[in-house]
C-alpha cells in the first residue's frame, strides 16, 4: 500500500514540472503532505505511540494544512503575481524531471544494496533532485521556498525508510520543516514580493520631465 502512495507521489512531481500557477504548486504541496501522512502511518505503525502521534500530527497539520495556508496568505499579502515564471519552458522541465526519475532508478539499481528499500530510495532521491531543479529554474523567492519544501519532503521519505529502526531520523527530518517555516516567516516579515512591485509601478507613473 505504501508503494502505491509512493508512486502517486512521483506522479505529483511530474505535475509539479508542468504547473503554471503558484496556487497549483500550493495544492500539490498540500497533496504531498496528505500522501506523506498515509506513508508515515503505514510505515511507522510499530514505533511508540507518542512519537507516532507527533509524526502524524506534524504531517497532516503542518505539511498538509498550515504551510499551504500560510503560503497562500503570503502570496496574497505580498501581492505576488500568480505565474510561476520559470526560466525554462515547462516542456523541458517535464523531460528533465522524467530523466531525473530514470537516472535515480538506474543509479539505485546499480547500488544493489540489501539494506536499502529501493522504491523509497528512488522516490526520495528523485524528489530531492526535483526540488533542487525547481529552485534553480524559477524566478521568484517564494518558488525557491516551495522547492525547498519539496526537497524537505524527499528527506522525510528517506527518513521514513529507516524510521522503524531509527525514529530519531524522522524527527530530524521534521526539524527541516521548522527551518523551512523560518524561511517563510522571513519572506513574510520582510515583505519580499515581485521584483517589480505594484507600488513601484505606481511611482513610475509620477515621473515627469
Amino acid at each position, binding site marked *: 500500500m505504501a*508503494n502505491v502512495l509512493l508512486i502517486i507521489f512521483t506522479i505529483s512531481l511530474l505535475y509539479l514540472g508542468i504547473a503554471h500557477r503558484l496556487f497549483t504548486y500550493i495544492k500539490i504541496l498540500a497533496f504531498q503532505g496528505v500522501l506523506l501522512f498515509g506513508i508515515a502511518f503505514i510505515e511507522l505503525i510499530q514505533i511508540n505511540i507518542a512519537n507516532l502521534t507527533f509524526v502524524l500530527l506534524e504531517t497532516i497539520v503542518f505539511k498538509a494544512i498550515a504551510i499551504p495556508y500560510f503560503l497562500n496568505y503570503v502570496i496574497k499579502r505580498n501581492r505576488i503575481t500568480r505565474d510561476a515564471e520559470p526560466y525554462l519552458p515547462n516542456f523541458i522541465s517535464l523531460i528533465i524531471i522524467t530523466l531525473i526519475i530514470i537516472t535515480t532508478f538506474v543509479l539505485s539499481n546499480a547500488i544493489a544494496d540489501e539494506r536499502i528499500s529501493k522504491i523509497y530510495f528512488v522516490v526520495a532521491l528523485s524528489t530531492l533532485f526535483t526540488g533542487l531543479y525547481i529552485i534553480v529554474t524559477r524566478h521568484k523567492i517564494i518558488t525557491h521556498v516551495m522547492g525547498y519544501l519539496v526537497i524537505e519532503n524527499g528527506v522525510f521519505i528517506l527518513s521514513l525508510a529507516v524510521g522503524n529502526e531509527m525514529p530519531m531520523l524522522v524527527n530530524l527530518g521534521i526539524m527541516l520543516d521548522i527551518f523551512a517555516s523560518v524561511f517563510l516567516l522571513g519572506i513574510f516579515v520582510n515583505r519580499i514580493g515581485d521584483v517589480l512591485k505594484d507600488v513601484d509601478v505606481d511611482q513610475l507613473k509620477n515621473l515627469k520631465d
Partner: protein
Amino acid sequence: MISFILIIVASIFFTGIIIRTKSITSGRKGPGILQPMKDIFRLFKKGAVYSKTTSFIFQIAPSVYFASVIMAILVIPFGQYKGMISFDGDFVFFAYVLGTGKFFSIISALDTGSSFEGMGASREALFSMFAEPAFFILMGSLALLTGHTSFQQIFASLHFGSYISYILGVMATFVLVMITLVENSRMPFDDPKTHLELTMVHEVMILDNSGFDLGLILYATNLKFAMYGALIANLFMGSFPLYLTIPIFLGIQILFAIAVGILESFTARFRMNHNAQYILALSSVTLLIFLGVLLVLGQFS
C-alpha cells in the same frame, strides 16, 4: 467475433451518452441517445461534393480512414476470446493500422489546399506523435508483465495480485482514457464544438468533406471511442465467464462515456501551445508503469 459485435453495439450509443451527459449537467434535457446515429444515417443518404482543387486522394481518404478503424477493431479481443485477427505482436499492427488511417486523413486535409486544414493537420500529427510513445510503453510493460505479446494473451493472463498491480491497473486506465481523448480530439486537448477554424484540430481537417464521406468520418470517431473503451474493459475482464464479461463490458463503456461527458462539461480546454507537454506527461506516467512492472517482476526489488 464477439468483441467486434459488442464494439459495434457500443459505438451506436456511445456519443449519444456523452451528449446526453453534457446536456444534463448544463440543465437541459438534451437529444435522444440515438440522435448522433440518426444524423450519421442522414449523411449516408446524401451524395458528396468534391472541390475542383482536390485529387483522388481526397476521395479515397475517408474510406481508408474508416477501413483502418474497422481493421483495428478486428484485433481487439474479448477477455479470453480472441479477436477476429490475432497473432504475436498484434498491438503493433493495431497502432500502425490506426496510423495509416490518420496518415490518409492528414494528406487528404493537405490535398484541399486550404491553409486552415494544413494547420489542423499539423496539430493532429503532432499530438498523435506525442501520444504514441505512451501507448507503446504501456503495451510493452503489459507484455513484459505477462510474458506474452498478443492482445488476447496479454489480457487473458493479466491478473491483479499485489497492491502494486492495482496501481498499475489504475494508471493504465488513466493513460488509455487520455490517449482516447487525444486520438478522438476531445475536450481537454481539442474542443469538438468550437466554431473558430484557428482553434480547431480535428474539426478543421474535415471541413471540406460532405455527405457520405463526412458520415464515414463521424461514424469512425464513434467506433474509435468504443474501441478504446473495449481496450479499457479488457483490462478488468480477466478470464471470467461470458455472462459476467458482457455486463462488465457494457458497464465500462457507459461509465467511460459518462466520464468523458462530465470531463467535457467541467473542464476548459488546454491552451494550444501547452497541449504538447500535457500529452508528453502521459509518456512519463507510462514510464512509471514500466518501472512499476520492473518492481513487480523483481528485476528490481
